[in-house]
């Protein structure tokens, strides 16, 4: 399905900023959060360092935090001139509209899409598919080997939904991109779940951002080559200074991956 001819399009390096109480935090397997700085400052720094895109996730997603996140998006948009996606607790097309108008390029929908899949088609028809990101938190199924189950509510609630089927349905409904997080790998720095990445990239024709598990430069390469990911997302290894964005891009470019350097 994914033809060689797209080889020219550069692969993207996307730092992810999980935001709680107006601070960037990062945990392991969605737990044990550590402080990683101010979201606007950190976003601007990553942009200056050559990040291709940013993702901001409001991980509290309460009514109060939703207001804060709009203000955050406005501030980021005044200072950062690369695309960024915002997600976390978005439930309606109106909320999507507010965030896009505040300066976000894309919005990501997770739990709300499981509860009400038509939000994807309504969003696509109004804003175009390219603004609608379906975020999937997937975990290896204990009952069904070789399958992944979709988890919702920031990963706290497992569902019976198969991640690969859900990704394909999401595309059909109008999602323009998939932000795919392996809950098993998240924050472990032990590498992306490339079986998961490959299963999803084989099943859809929209871009897939691989997320969860980046620890070394080789992990990024593997996600792109073995997982066929169009973009790689990372948090721990950029926030805590393991690698600069330039180091990541140079490494991948040296190994033959098209990058915007």
């Amino acid at each position, binding site marked *: 399905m*994914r*033809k060689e*001819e*797209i080889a*020219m*399009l*550069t*692969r*993207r390096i996307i730092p992810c900023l999980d935001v709680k109480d107006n601070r960037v935090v990062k945990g392991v397997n969605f737990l044990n959060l550590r402080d990683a700085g101010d979201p606007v400052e950190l976003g601007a720094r990553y*942009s200056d360092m050559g990040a*291709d*895109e940013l993702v901001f996730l409001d991980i509290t997603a309460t009514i109060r935090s939703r207001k804060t996140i709009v203000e955050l998006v*406005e501030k980021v*948009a*005044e*200072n950062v*001139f*690369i*695309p960024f996606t915002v997600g976390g607790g978005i439930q309606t097309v109106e909320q999507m*509209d507010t965030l*896009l*108008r*505040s*300066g*976000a*390029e*894309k919005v990501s929908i997770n739990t709300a899409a499981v509860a009400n899949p038509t939000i994807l088609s309504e969003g*696509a*028809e*109004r*804003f*175009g*598919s*390219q*603004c609608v990101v379906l975020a999937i938190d997937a975990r290896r199924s204990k009952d069904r080997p070789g399958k992944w189950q979709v988890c919702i509510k920031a990963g706290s609630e497992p569902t019976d939904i198969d991640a690969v089927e859900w990704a394909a349905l999401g595309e059909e409904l109008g999602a*323009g*991109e998939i932000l795919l997080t392996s809950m098993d790998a998240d924050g472990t720095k032990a590498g992306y779940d490339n079986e998961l990445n490959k299963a999803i990239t084989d099943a859809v*024709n*929209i*871009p897939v951002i691989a997320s969860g598990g980046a620890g070394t430069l080789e992990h990024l390469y593997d996600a792109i080559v073995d997982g066929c990911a*169009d*973009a790689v997302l990372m948090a721990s290894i950029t926030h805590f200074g393991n690698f600069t964005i330039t180091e990541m891009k140079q490494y991948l470019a040296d190994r033959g991956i098209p990058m*915007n350097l």
Partner: protein
Amino acid sequence: MIVVIDYNVGNVKSVCNAFEYIGRKVQLSCDPDVIRQATGVVLPGVAAFGYAVRELGTLAELIKEVASEGRPLLGICVGFQMLFERSCEYGEHTGLGLIRGNVVPIPAGRVIPHMGWNKVELPEDMDLFAGLGDAKHFYFAHSFYADVNDSECRVAYTEYGFDMQASVQKGNVYGTQFHPEKSGPTGLKILENFAQICEKKK
């Protein structure tokens, strides 16, 4: 002053932010009197084509009028696509018709939307690209592209399994399929170039 058309779509504010960041004053407005006074007009747009055309409404005629008087017009993304005659995104829709050609789906057989930073070959004779060299990366996010069919139009292309139209210039009408307001310093340079074009025309 440059006027950014304020209609009910996304990225309008990002375009204003970007001009402000480079020290260029712009006015965000949907007031016909303000638009008539503009030194140049920017038509942004993150939306589906049909939605954008509907929201633009009667301002479409005014924008055509301003462009026909020779004032610089810059369309970005869906604003760029609206410069053309027709689109078939979620139904058949009519654009401004300033440039001949139609907006059609990117052919299957590759990842769609075309999303990310792709290299654009920059022709020397296109004013928006002054001082940028012969090729640069810009940020794209779209599923439809403008199939230009206008001999008076200069075109810059990007490669996505075929030569895809990335930017056009026809007289004082300019457009970019990519997002200069989200393409880092290179994108900001394009907006600066447009601001200079508007200054010269004044």
